[in-house]
């Protein structure tokens, strides 16, 4: 890639940083240059976020329909996967899956729920009285 071809597109890096890229100068030698972003990858990142929004919405619907507990919602909201939530809570992945069931969730004690609330950075009340 030549120095003058380095994209300087708008991206989410704006106001945070610019990234170092390796480009060729007019003498054909490699130099570094700073880029504000490339539209091609911004589009990929934006698609990823649309997908995350879609999953959060789907989690909400599942809770309304009594198919899942609020834990699923915050799990999606915080972009987690099971190893991540298991790591932060100390609960096994198998237990977490159970806790995502509404029937199991409503019988959970405050101590367990408090662990989740802290990991999700919300109050115990927010988790218990999940308000859509």
């Amino acid at each position, binding site marked *: 890639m030549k120095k003058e071809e*380095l994209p300087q597109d708008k991206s989410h*890096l704006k106001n945070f*940083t*610019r*990234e170092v890229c*390796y480009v060729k100068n007019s003498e054909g030698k*490699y130099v570094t240059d700073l880029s504000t972003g490339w539209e091609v990858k911004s589009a990929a990142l934006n698609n990823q976020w649309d997908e995350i929004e879609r999953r959060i919405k789907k989690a909400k619907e599942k809770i309304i329909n009594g198919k899942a507990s609020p834990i699923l919602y915050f799990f999606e909201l915080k972009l987690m996967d099971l190893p991540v939530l298991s*790591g932060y809570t100390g609960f096994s992945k198998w237990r977490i899956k159970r806790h995502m069931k509404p029937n199991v969730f409503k019988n959970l004690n405050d101590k367990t729920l408090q662990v989740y609330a802290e990991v999700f950075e919300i109050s115990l009340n927010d988790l218990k009285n999940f308000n859509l």
Partner: protein
Amino acid sequence: MKEFKHIQTAHCENGVTVKLLKEQGLDWINEPLAFGMGSGLFYIHIPFLKVNGGPAISFRSMPGSIFRRTCKVLNIKINRKKFRSKDNARNYLNEKLNQGITVGCQVGVFHLKYFPKEYRFHFNAHNLIVYGKEGNNYLISDPVMENTTALSVDELEKVRFAKGALAPKGHIYYPEKTEKITNEKIRKGIIKGIKHNVRDMLYIPARFTGVNGINHTASKIRKWREKHGVRNAGLFLGQIVRMQEEIGTGGGGFRFLYAAFLEQAAERLNNDKIIRISEEFTKSGDLWRDSALQMAGIYKGRITSQKDFNDAADIMNEIASVERKALNDLNKLKLH
């Protein structure tokens, strides 16, 4: 405290490696050299592992390996430690800073407050430098940022003990004091790095790594539209492009960075043939950019036919053959 000079690089681990080695008096080191001697170039389509239901692909070697290998080829001893206890991790860090030692830390980016929110996923193999402490704040030099920054004691602790895949567990590291590195040793290091990279890219007997891996992904892409539908297949392609181009690769899936390394290698080894091979990696990097453009056409919904998926796969096949030839040429050089 002596003045700290921040260095910005494309990739975090290269940056930490460069800065920590410069602190040990290796004033000649720079990002391409660290990347090449640490044999960072790679490709792997990790089997059985899915990221958001899509492919798990990496364009570089295992996290931590660039620092480890660069130090190894230069015979520099590494100090590294992981911790169960947060208190011990904090005390150890403070102790090193009090001794005037600059250290590298592995962290997760989800809670890294100076990153844009859109980039903060649960990715745990980020690296930064801690170079001091002022009151309740640690002074941070993050190689992908333009400037130094700071994190409070709690904020740093949170990212050092991020959870999930590749959890850092407080991982802290720094190179030992070293004698002066001779030019001969640098040359040897460059050659070892090249040989290691040729081996990794050409001779691992698996269909999902190195040059074979690129063809492996290409053949999967041909089937994605049928198997997963245009929307999901598009998301998967977006994932490839992000691994390939997102902040940290220097563009073109580290291929430009490797070409820059070979350019320096040619000079240091006084071997013009390497310049030609560097050109091949530039070509490969340019093709990776073309491939990203083609894939973007698909995930932006502009071109979505099976032919468009095939075209993307064709570019990847071409990349594989360009890289195979370049690596074979490197192999034939009989460097010593």
